[in-house]
């Protein structure tokens, strides 16, 4: 069945089709329609789930963790300041190996108070141990929620589905809503290898001495390293059943490219148009949109970028005193490789400023006219 829905509701439908059993949320800004629709589904019986209203995002995640540990499939959604307030609980989710799936609408951090697109909120949670997927269409958002449960529950690592504020969250697109019976076939009920139950009492998350802490972290990293292959495997399985492939990255005309944009989120869609324009001008351009940001898809990125002489990384975020965060990550992935491209870093679109075809034209002109990296950061669209 096809429906015209906004990105927020694509998250809701994804959670509904995945048969989330416990949903906890704090219903005020920066919350969005994600949980509003889910609360209606719970109220009218469309979704057989417990909806828990809490007093903060910190508590929303805490409620999900308790439920997840008891064996329930859990979902929540947030944004910006709300995600920051969850920070401590994000470590609990990953360290405690609780496969919560959460939607995060990429919104700029305050102050100045902002509700517009910017990736600094989710990228500030880079090191919490969550899997992160960045989406570029409402269809991808819905599909990724279902895939994320499959990946997360297999490895017992939580997942964050990230989408841009407004350009996806409040933009209506045609979305194919998959059949419930097919989704049930793809995603069996959550059956964790351990759980909180009176039948087999255990203490979870207790004091862990230096005798064991490091091994727990080692095991989390080792399981994180299994994610890229599992994303490929579950993405291909998804394609077989639903006709849409969900990989670690999305390549657009990268095969013969001599110049590649590295993008994420909706800017990745705009980049495709920019690539077409460059190709009309005779420049062999391509676009590599990173979908899986954590764990970082090292192999994929290396195999694609080592073939090209020039790369331009676009960041809608900044690590103050360093670079754009995707720029750091791409450079670190290419370091020490036998063939390294020239990698330029650009920052654009902070706080919801539009990233347009013109932005990409400016980026291409800059990168194609230089033979070495001259500036740490190239700013696009700052009123200087």
């Amino acid at each position, binding site marked *: 069945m096809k429906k015209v829905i906004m990105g927020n509701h694509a998250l809701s439908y994804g959670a509904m089709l995945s048969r989330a059993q416990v949903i906890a949320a704090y219903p005020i800004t920066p919350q969005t329609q994600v949980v509003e629709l889910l609360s209606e589904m719970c109220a009218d019986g469309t979704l057989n789930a417990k909806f828990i209203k809490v007093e903060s995002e910190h508590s929303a995640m805490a409620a999900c963790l308790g439920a997840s540990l008891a064996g329930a499939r859990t979902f929540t959604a947030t944004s910006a300041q709300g995600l920051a307030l969850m920070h401590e609980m994000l470590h609990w989710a990953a*360290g*405690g*190996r609780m496969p919560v799936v959460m939607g995060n609408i990429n919104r700029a951090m305050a102050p100045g108070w902002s509700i517009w697109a910017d990736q600094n909120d989710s990228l500030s949670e880079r090191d919490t141990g969550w899997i992160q997927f960045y989406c570029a269409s409402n269809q991808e958002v819905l599909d990724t929620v279902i895939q994320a449960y499959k990946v997360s529950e297999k490895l*017992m690592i939580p997942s964050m589905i990230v989408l841009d504020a407004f350009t996806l969250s409040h933009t209506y697109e045609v979305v194919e809503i998959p059949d419930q019976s097919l989704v049930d076939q793809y995603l069996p009920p959550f059956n964790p290898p*351990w759980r909180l139950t009176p039948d087999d009492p*255990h*203490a*979870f*998350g*207790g*004091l*862990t*001495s230096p*005798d*064991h802490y490091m*091994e*727990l972290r*080692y*095991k*989390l990293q080792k*399981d994180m390293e299994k994610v890229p292959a599992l994303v490929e495997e579950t993405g291909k399985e998804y394609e077989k059943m639903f006709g849409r492939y969900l990989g670690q990255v999305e390549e657009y005309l990268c095969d013969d490219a001599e110049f590649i944009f590295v993008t994420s989120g909706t800017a990745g869609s705009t980049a495709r148009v920019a690539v077409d324009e460059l190709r009309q001008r005779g420049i062999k351009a391509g676009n590599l949109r990173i979908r899986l940001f954590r764990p970082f898809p090292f192999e994929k990125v290396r195999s694609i970028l080592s073939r090209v002489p020039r790369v331009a990384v676009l960041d809608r975020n900044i690590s103050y005193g360093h670079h754009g965060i995707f720029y750091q990550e791409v450079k670190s992935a290419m370091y020490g490789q036998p063939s390294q491209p020239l990698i330029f870093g650009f920052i654009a679109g902070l706080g919801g400023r539009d990233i347009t075809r013109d932005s990409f034209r400016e980026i291409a002109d800059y990168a194609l006219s230089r033979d070495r990296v001259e500036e740490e950061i190239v700013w696009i669209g700052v009123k200087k």
Partner: protein
Amino acid sequence: MSRKKEARKIIFESEKEMPPVPMSLGSMLHNRTGAWRNIKPVIDLSKCIKCGICWKFCPDASIDIVDEWPQINYDYCKGCGLCAEECPQKCITMVEEEK
């Protein structure tokens, strides 16, 4: 409901033997928190009605029911006094620990 487990320190020799989650690593059993106590609860069993409220409320699970009567496990009781506060018979007194 007496405590049958022995308080021993669990040390895994390899990460392969360990659960991936910090789950019942045994450290709290090994950690005899009774040494933290300044005041200790003492039950006057002549007034006790065996209601089990102290057993239910003890946040450290340091009260066992032995042959229907409550018995405090001083190896772990931190002396918080919750049991004395909740006891409906007021038969638990908090007594100063002697050096």
